[in-house]
Each structure stands twice: as C-alpha cells, then as structure tokens.
C-alpha cells in the first residue's frame, strides 16, 4: 500500500519483467526442460489464482469451494462448444457469464458472513455444485464429464489460427493473462482496492466508516468467480474436456494452497509465484515420486506454521536484510516502516 503523491505506475517494473518472461517463454522453455503445455497450464492457473486472491489475500474471505466456479466456466465453455458450436470468444464469454452468475448467486448467501461461517458455507456450496455436476448426467455427462471439445480456430478477421498448436494456444492465454494482470493491478491500486482490504483488517470499522460491506463482499466474490470462469473456459479449451473432479473439495483446496504458499497474504504476485512453485513441484517432484502431492501438502502446512506470508513474504524479508531498499521487494500490500518513512 504505497501511498505516494502522484500516480503510481500503471505498469510497474515487476510487471514488465513478468510480461517479458511470459511472452518469451516458448523460446526458452525447452532449454530449461519445460514445454509449452505446462506454460499454458501455469498461465491459466495464474488467472484463476489472481482472481482468487482478490477474495482471500485482499478481502480476507477464505473460500474453499472455488473449484465450483472454475468447473462451471469449464462446463459453460464445453457446452457452448458442443451445443452451439461456439468459437473462442463466444465460448469464453459464456464461460465467464455462467461462472459469474453462479458466483453472484452464491455470494447472496455468503456476503453477510465472514471467517469460519463463510468458509464452511463455501465448502457446502462447492460440494453441492460438485454433486450436481455428477448427477445431472444429461447436461454434464456425469462422472465422465464432457469430452471431445476440440480445439477451436481463432478467427482474427484477416486470418484464422488453429489453436490445436500449443504455441498458438499459449499466446492466446498469455495475452488474456496480461490483460487480467493489468486490470487487476489497476483495480487493486484504486481506492476500491484499499477499501476491500479494510474489510480484511477490520470489518466493523469499515461499516462504521459508511461502507456497505455486504455489497462490497458480494462484488468481490462475483468478480473472483468471473476470473475463475475465464480460467475454467480456457482450461476446457486446453484439456478438450470438462469433468466434475475440478469442482471437488480436493481440487478447490489446490488453489488455496498455491496462492498462500506463494505469499498471497502479502503480495499481488503471491499467486503467480505460488502457481509456478506448484507446477514445478508437480513436474519435478512428480518425476521422482508418485506421492508428490502429499509432499506439497506438507509444504503447505509448513508454510502455514513457519512462514504464513509465503515465498513473497520471505523474499521481502531477505531483500530487505541484504539490500536495504534495493532492489525493491515485490509489491507487498503491506508497506514497512522503513520504506515509508523516508
């Protein structure tokens, strides 16, 4: 929360670095033993994670059922593709709309709550959506889900690019991710971004300052659902299928862990770091042992016990200790006294 006079940058240094890495990825991925597909997965989950952290890290609302909205986005895109023959944009718009609608509905039940009641309600809601997706065979294909969602063609007017190629799909996702990052950065550095944090810090006081807290919570929840929907739609596009498992509590838990390990509690970039760490763990650990998820879970527990501020928080402390003010720590929501009292 750096308040300086004059406008804070729309595209700060870290974001530029991120964009460079993001857009150059396919060129150097192979040389570090990675591949385009994982790049797509990471980018999609970063979209999901950034939207999710809006809710958890910034507003302080722990949702353990967010997989439902990822799933609804996926099913939305899949059904649009299968039944309406939708292309890329229509499909994604439907995915976002469906997920947002579901989130808005759920938010009506949730927005007057916080803390543990909120968390348990999200579990219940998530479970209900998961259950419905398994049982409503005619719509969702039951346990098997929707299949044969072929990669579409991206129609750019003058030309058409097949997204069957992972590189092409990667760039589409990367562009969308860049847009999401710019949007969210702007949003979270606006007065609204400060206000949602007051809800995390002291909801009662926020009320006494005149804020209609329930409405703000509703808005944030719906927004985070929208981002999950976008990620879900892209997910379905990439995997060429949609299935109930992504709505399970197990899967919903993954995004929570990713975001927090990365440092979602203290930094805008927490989810980015967290998603990357997760997929590295999956691929690197996964090649050594089948039980990698167990180790990741233990890592998460260790983080909660020893370093709840995650990687971003640790980085923050380390750079401060070794470099003083230089290089600047990743955008921490919480400024330190040293940084501020210059």
């Amino acid at each position: 929360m750096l308040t300086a006079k004059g406008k804070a940058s729309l595209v700060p240094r870290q974001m530029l670095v991120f964009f460079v890495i993001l857009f150059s990825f396919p060129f150097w991925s192979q040389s570090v033993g990675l591949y385009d597909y994982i790049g797509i997965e990471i980018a999609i989950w970063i979209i999901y994670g950034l939207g999710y952290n809006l809710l958890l890290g910034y507003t302080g609302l722990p949702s353990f059922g967010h997989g439902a909205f990822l799933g609804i986005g996926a099913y939305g895109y899949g059904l649009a593709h299968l039944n309406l023959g939708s292309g890329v944009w229509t499909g994604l718009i439907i995915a976002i709309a469906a997920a947002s609608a579901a989130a808005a509905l759920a938010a009506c039940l949730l927005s007057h709550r916080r803390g543990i009641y909120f968390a348990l309600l999200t579990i219940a809601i998530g479970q209900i959506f998961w259950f419905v997706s398994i049982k409503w065979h005619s719509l969702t294909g039951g346990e098997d889900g929707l299949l044969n969602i072929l990669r579409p063609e991206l129609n750019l007017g003058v030309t058409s690019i097949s997204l069957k190629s992972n590189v092409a799909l990667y760039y589409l996702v990367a562009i969308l991710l860049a847009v999401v990052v710019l949007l969210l950065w702007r949003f979270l550095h606006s007065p609204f971004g400060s206000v949602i944090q007051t809800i995390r810090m002291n909801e009662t006081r926020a009320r006494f300052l005149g804020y209609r807290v329930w409405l703000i919570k509703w808005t944030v929840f719906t927004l985070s659902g929208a981002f999950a929907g976008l990620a879900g739609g892209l997910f379905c596009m990439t995997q060429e299928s949609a299935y109930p498992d992504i709505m399970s509590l197990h899967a919903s838990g993954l995004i929570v862990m990713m975001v927090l390990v990365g440092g979602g509690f203290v930094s805008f970039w927490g989810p980015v770091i967290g998603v990357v760490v997760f997929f590295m763990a999956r691929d690197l650990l996964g090649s050594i042992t089948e039980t990698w998820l167990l180790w990741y879970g233990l890592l998460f527990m260790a983080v909660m016990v020893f370093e709840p501020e995650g990687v971003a928080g640790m980085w923050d402390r380390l750079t401060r200790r070794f470099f003083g003010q230089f290089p600047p720590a990743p955008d921490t929501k919480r400024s330190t006294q040293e940084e501020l009292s210059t």
Partner: protein
Amino acid sequence: MSFFVAENLHKRFGSQVVLEDISLAFEAGGVSGIMGPNGAGKSTCFNVLTGLYRPERGRVLFDGEDITGLAPSEISRKGISRSFQVMTLFDEFSALDNIMVALPAVRSGLGRAFWEMRADSALADQAEAVLAQVGLGGRERVLASALPYGERRALEIGVTLASEPRIVFLDEPTQGMGSDGRTLLVDLVQKLRTTYTLVIIEHNMQFLFQLADRISVIHWGQVIAEGTPSELNENEWVRSSELGKV
C-alpha cells in the same frame, strides 16, 4: 428540537437491563459530555446512540430524523461519526491510508473509484490535511501499528473526523493517556469545537469539566444528573461520589 436526541432508551442483554428509560439531548455546535462510573451503562448507551446496538424500546433521532436501528454504515452516511475505545485502526495501513479510506470522496466514489489510481493527489492532500488537524503532520507514511500510543489515539480521532461528520462521538479519548497526552487532547478538542458538534464519553471528570458545555451523568442505567459543569459541582451526589475525586 435538539440536534441529537435519545428518547426513552431501554436496552437489555439477556435478562440484565443495562439501560433503563434513558433520555438525552445534545445541541448543535457544543461539546456534550456523558459521564459515569464503569459498568454504569454509559458505554452501552454510547453504543446504542451510535448504532452498534439496537434498543428494545426507545428512539434515537438525529436532526429530526429517526435513526433507531439503522445499520452502522447508514448511520455513518447520515453524518454521525464515532471513535472507538479499543482502537480499531487499520494496522497494516499507513496513517495516510487510514485517513483516506474514511474520506467521503472515497466512500461515495467507490464505483468510479474502480478506475482511479489511489495515489490521486487530491485525495492524498485531503488526507494530509486531516492528519495535520490532529497533530500528525509529517507522520503520513508511518504504519499505524508502528505509531506510539498517543499518536495512535490521535489517528483514531483523525479517522473519526475524516468523514466530515456533522456530529462526532468520542469514546473515552483519554484512555491510557498520561497528563501530557491529556493536555494535547484538551487543546485538540478546543480547536475542534468550532467546527464540529462533539459528544464525549469519559470517566475522567476533570477532562470533561474543562471542556463540556453540558454533561449527563449515567449510573445504574439511568440519567441521574444533568447540567453544566458548575451546576453539577453543586450536585451533592456528584461531589460525594467517586467521580468527585479529582
């Protein structure tokens, strides 16, 4: 009709009656005091007046309008602002940010504010002015949690003032302050009384007597005495009670 009126407030917690038929009136432009020993009901009264609790019976009227039972956010928007005894600052924010989120320009401009960048000069200027008003000029960028106690109290009052209220309720502002702090606070209130209507709840009689135009004494859930400081000095009960010990 007085500026702020409480009529026949009755408040119960479970089976315990805490406020019994309390009526109060505060005039615009003055400093009013609410005094009483701890556990007397003055905190509950305060909380009912400012919308934290809903009374079982009775009404609260502000500038002629019935505000009984309104949600805290609505009460705030009517121009009623309160400070908190157990300080509820946003610890992870700087002093400046604490003030900024209290500004009406931020509060009412939330929709538009989606797009404005927070570090908008005009907002920062307004917030700086408020900080200067409570003596925290130059401390803008310090984290609220890093401020010493006295400055936190000042910030608390600053946040209360930032929303440009029409009436300001201060909840035990001298709590935990040494005599230096109290002197500063007295000065501050004297400065503020020209712009705001203040209602101060306190158990420090000396402080209140210095500042208030009128004081209501609450004990056993009722208003047992009321008047100007000099009138109350004549009051037998007040003189002989614990409160009288200056």
